[in-house]
């Protein structure tokens, strides 16, 4: 990243670029591809919508590339498991892009049970001048053909097609919560509550189980896997997080079944903060490697923690996302908000981390300056091109103007999914069924 963009470490000058209202459904995942040119969103209805950044034009240099809808397709359909009398939701839990190797784009999308590989390709030419059929596709009477010609390719309107190329199914008994593409670009892993499976992208009828924490006696089950990710550079290393607040790093070279971890990251509990809900709020909802591969970030209910891979005893940094909720845990438990799973993201240079909160707030933390900001993603509060105003939550005492008190927070408006462009200061924020894209202000 350039020096100028680095100096604006916490971007208090994000401006709202567009508000893409996908009214029909709640967005369940957001992901930029590796170049940032494409942005994919998955929703509760099983659809994937891909946005493409338009090329920056020289005529309007102040207008940065905006994201427009590129492709929309139905990735997963609802299914019914007759044996267990259970409905399998079509909600897209995660989308992960594959690195681009040719003109087509590939992504993996998953619901609770099945992972699919989708190919998104463009078609802007079509062959014309067939001998055996006419332009409408009707078969020509061979008796009428007197000459032969070679079909030629003629330009047509751009068409973007999405086709499922692989379907990886029947490998998970429990609900899939993560997928992660390996840096070798040949394998990926899918993670459910108790198991992690390793797949080859080419082979759909076989997968390898690499982690299995299911106890022989299900009554002894006290811990589930909540998220997993491959190391960005070392194709043999991955981490998985648990509902008890621990992270295990595993090396696939050690054994075929990586039940024994290589490293175990856990922070001892602070006895002064102990409550009935200590375990629930320690459950890690998301784990992400930094782009450098040196650090790990975890999100639990109230905090975001950055870990150094070389230090297992405690995190390097802890950031309070919404500590004012600590005294409200009982109510949040009753209304089930305490089980909300927030995600977290790094920026391209690993200097800023971002995560969501309630009331359509999302938070950014600058790791270097230790500054943080709370921003809001809502239509009422931001007009296009307007600079986002930092928000503040008042915990007690006199409430200033423009501040919002904890009791007025809307807990139905939660920002669980966010994404950060891999190299620029562009963020995508999913607020229920609306997608907001914010860009850095151009000076």
């Amino acid at each position, binding site marked *: 990243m350039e020096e100028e963009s680095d*100096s*604006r*470490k*916490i971007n*208090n*000058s994000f401006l709202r670029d567009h508000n893409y209202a996908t009214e029909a459904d709640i967005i369940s995942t957001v992901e930029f591809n590796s170049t940032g040119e494409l942005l994919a969103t998955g929703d509760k209805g099983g659809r994937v919508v891909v946005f493409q950044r338009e090329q920056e034009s020289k005529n309007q240099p102040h207008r940065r590339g905006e994201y427009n809808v590129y492709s929309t397709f139905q990735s997963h359909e609802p299914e019914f498991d007759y044996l*267990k*009398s*259970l*409905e399998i*939701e079509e909600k897209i839990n995660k989308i992960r892009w594959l690195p681009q190797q040719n003109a087509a784009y590939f992504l993996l999308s998953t619901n609770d049970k099945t992972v699919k590989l989708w190919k998104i390709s463009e078609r802007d030419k079509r062959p014309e001048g067939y001998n055996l059929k006419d332009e409408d596709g009707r078969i020509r009477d061979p008796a009428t053909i007197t000459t032969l010609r070679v079909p030629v390719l003629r330009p047509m309107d751009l068409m973007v097609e999405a086709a499922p190329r692989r379907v990886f199914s029947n490998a998970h*008994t*429990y*609900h899939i*919560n993560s997928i992660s593409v390996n840096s070798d670009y040949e394998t990926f892993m899918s993670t459910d*509550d*108790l198991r992690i499976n390793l797949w080859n992208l080419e082979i759909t009828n076989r997968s390898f189980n690499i982690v299995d924490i299911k106890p022989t006696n299900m*009554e002894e089950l*006290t*811990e*589930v896997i*909540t998220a997993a990710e491959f190391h960005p550079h070392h194709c043999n290393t991955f981490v998985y997080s648990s*509902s008890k607040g621990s992270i295990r790093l595993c090396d696939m070279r050690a054994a075929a079944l990586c039940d024994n971890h290589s490293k175990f990251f856990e922070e001892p509990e602070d006895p002064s903060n102990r409550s*009935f809900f200590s*375990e*629930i709020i320690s*459950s890690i909802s998301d784990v992400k490697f930094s782009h450098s591969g040196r650090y790990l970030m975890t999100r639990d209910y109230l905090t975001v923690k950055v870990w150094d891979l070389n230090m297992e005893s405690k995190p390097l940094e802890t950031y*309070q996302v919404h*500590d004012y909720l600590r*005294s*409200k845990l*009982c*109510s949040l*438990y*009753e*209304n*089930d*908000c305490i*089980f909300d799973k927030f995600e977290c993201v790094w920026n391209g240079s690993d200097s800023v981390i971002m995560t969501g909160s309630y009331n359509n707030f999302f938070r950014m933390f*600058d790791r270097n*300056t230790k*500054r*943080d*900001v*709370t921003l809001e993603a809502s239509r009422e509060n931001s007009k296009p091109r307007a*600079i986002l*105003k930092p928000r*503040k939550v008042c*915990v*007690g*005492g006199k*409430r200033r*103007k*423009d501040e919002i008190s*904890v*009791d*007025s*927070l809307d*807990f*139905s408006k939660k920002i669980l999914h966010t994404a950060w462009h891999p190299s620029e200061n562009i963020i995508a924020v999913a607020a229920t069924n609306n997608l907001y894209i914010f860009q850095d202000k151009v000076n």
Partner: protein
Amino acid sequence: MGQRDITAFEASMKRKNGIPSVSMCRLEVESAAVKKEVEPGGDGALSSSRYMLGRGVKRKLSTCEDPAQDLPYPQQRQLVLDLCLDKLQSCQRRAEPSLHRSVLLANTLRQIQQEMRQEGETCLPLAPLGPSLPHASTPRHFPDLPPVPLDCPQPLTGALSPSFSLTTTEDEEVQLGGAENETLLPSFAGENDTRSTDSLFGSFEITNSTSYLTDLALDDIFEDIDTSMYDSADISVLPFPAQRSSGVDDGLKSLSSCNSNSSLQLCLSDLNDLDHIMEILVHS
């Protein structure tokens, strides 16, 4: 971020609103709680009126805090325990049972029960506050025992005593159903005290086994038992033991309807071993 940026930001804020903005440097969100003023409760999700917890309890100065936080510790704990059970029950009825959520709930419940046990509470406190739980049939003074779930046949592995085999006689079939409920609880724990926690999780997991485990194939045992009559809406609480004269189906139905914890608890406290139960069943 240099000073320059903050200044520019504040300047634009001033232009916009005419009010000096809050400086970015101060992290007031994390400041220690200051003396709180009484604020009128908002419409927010956390207002006490929604949870009926404020009734009867004098509102204290710290209205920003959770109303439940003001309760004395044992009652707080009881409240959480009740919520736990409530959620675990509703877990099974959800279209999308979540193992993660269930495990967290079960762990919380176990932790509370262990704590209560350690304090040697023999008489469980009756909480004066009454957030009315949807299941009025579950008396809160027997929180240890979950209502026996109704909506699926109960596949049990080791829980079924070998003496209970599925035969054609009415008596034994009812015994099978009856013993099911009995063996469900004692089989998982050695003594009375630990029974409650283990049985909760065990029974919870058992009922979920049709959802989560593919290797338990005990449905064949229940092949010829018609479970179509099970409907939680129709179940009425009947005293245990079941009336066997009305036939297998009715027997099982009424047995499974014995979800009232009080009757189960009463029976269990009196009839602890299997032989004794058998005796009662045969004679009644």
